């Protein structure tokens, strides 16, 4: 191989690698959403975890204690953001997320989120889960009429679909999936393995940069 051929090869590889990083960053920069009504923790936290979750999925329910433990372990250092991702569920998944978004409008997303997961076995097998969604809202003190109206509110449904689309654009095929400071972690098992070390490394990086 001549020198010219080597240089061409290196140039081609650099273009290939650069193209991938360019398209990746372009894809991810389009995913900023206004989801602050479903976030826990300070905006100034050095670590942000975005969870793409489905209220109907068992793994999403099972990972909750682990997430709570992480938040307890790193107080003030981790901000948790929830994003609706009902795409891989059944027809009722979407409605559970719409209901949760309605609760979020009242500032009660997290208690409603907990109720949906705690009672997953009840509503997810019901042919008429809406009555349970209304019941859980009432238990949290949300006005029934207002809540029922919200369930058919186009803007709420659109918001849920917008978040769902962002997950689809990222190509997430599994729930729960997580993004920790930009790094995507797919699946419950992987999150349990990688979340701790990733948070530690992010905190260490932050300390070094200060």
């Amino acid at each position: 191989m001549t020198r010219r051929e080597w240089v061409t090869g290196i140039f081609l590889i650099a273009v290939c690698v650069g193209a991938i990083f360019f398209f990746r960053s372009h894809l991810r920069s389009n995913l900023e959403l206004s989801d602050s009504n479903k976030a826990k923790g300070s905006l100034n936290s050095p670590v942000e975890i975005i969870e793409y979750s489905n209220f109907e999925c068992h793994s999403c329910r099972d990972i909750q204690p682990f997430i709570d433990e992480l938040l307890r372990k790193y107080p003030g250092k981790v901000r948790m953001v929830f994003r609706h991702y009902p795409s891989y569920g059944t027809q009722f998944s979407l409605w559970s997320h719409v209901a949760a978004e309605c609760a979020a409008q009242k500032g009660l997303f997290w208690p409603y989120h907990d109720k949906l997961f705690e009672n997953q076995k009840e509503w997810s097998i019901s042919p008429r889960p809406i009555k349970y969604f209304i019941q859980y809202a009432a238990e949290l003190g949300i006005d029934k009429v207002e809540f029922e109206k919200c369930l058919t509110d186009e803007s709420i449904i659109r918001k849920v679909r917008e978040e769902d689309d962002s997950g689809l654009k990222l190509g997430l095929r599994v729930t729960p999936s997580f993004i920790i400071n930009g790094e995507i972690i797919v699946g419950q098992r992987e999150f349990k393995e990688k979340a701790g070390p990733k948070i530690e490394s992010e905190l260490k990086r932050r300390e070094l940069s200060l």
Partner: protein
Amino acid sequence: MQKRLEVADYFWLSARLFVGIILAYAGFMKLMEPRGNFEFALQNYPLIPDSVIPLLSGVIPWMEWILGIFLIVGYAPRIAALFSSLLFLVFVVLIGLNLVGGKVIDNCGCFGERGIKLSPILAFFLDAGAFALSVLLLLKGYFPFSIQAWFKGK
């Protein structure tokens, strides 16, 4: 005589582009998605040990993407054809063993989650075809309209 040569040129060019585009597309789609997606797809192939799945899910998409581009532009095409035939051979064996074993999966995972979804049987024939063309390209070593031909002044 001149016309026959042109037809042959177009055949070899088409073969190279076909294999290159399949590889580049497969690699690009996987690289645009979380690595975990491909890890999940690889778990459907029992022949692959769990311990090497993280490594393979990182290496294969980059190999596909770079080999694909090399074949499309015709840079080091013989080396690219050698590696692509090895890659396709592995895919054919993995998918073939799943088919023989009766393991049912709805998507081969070849083009990621957002790319074209192929049933294992279709994926098997596509990979087998691409393997055959890669081997032909490797054996023939003739790459018209390529960077290599340009380097050699043809």
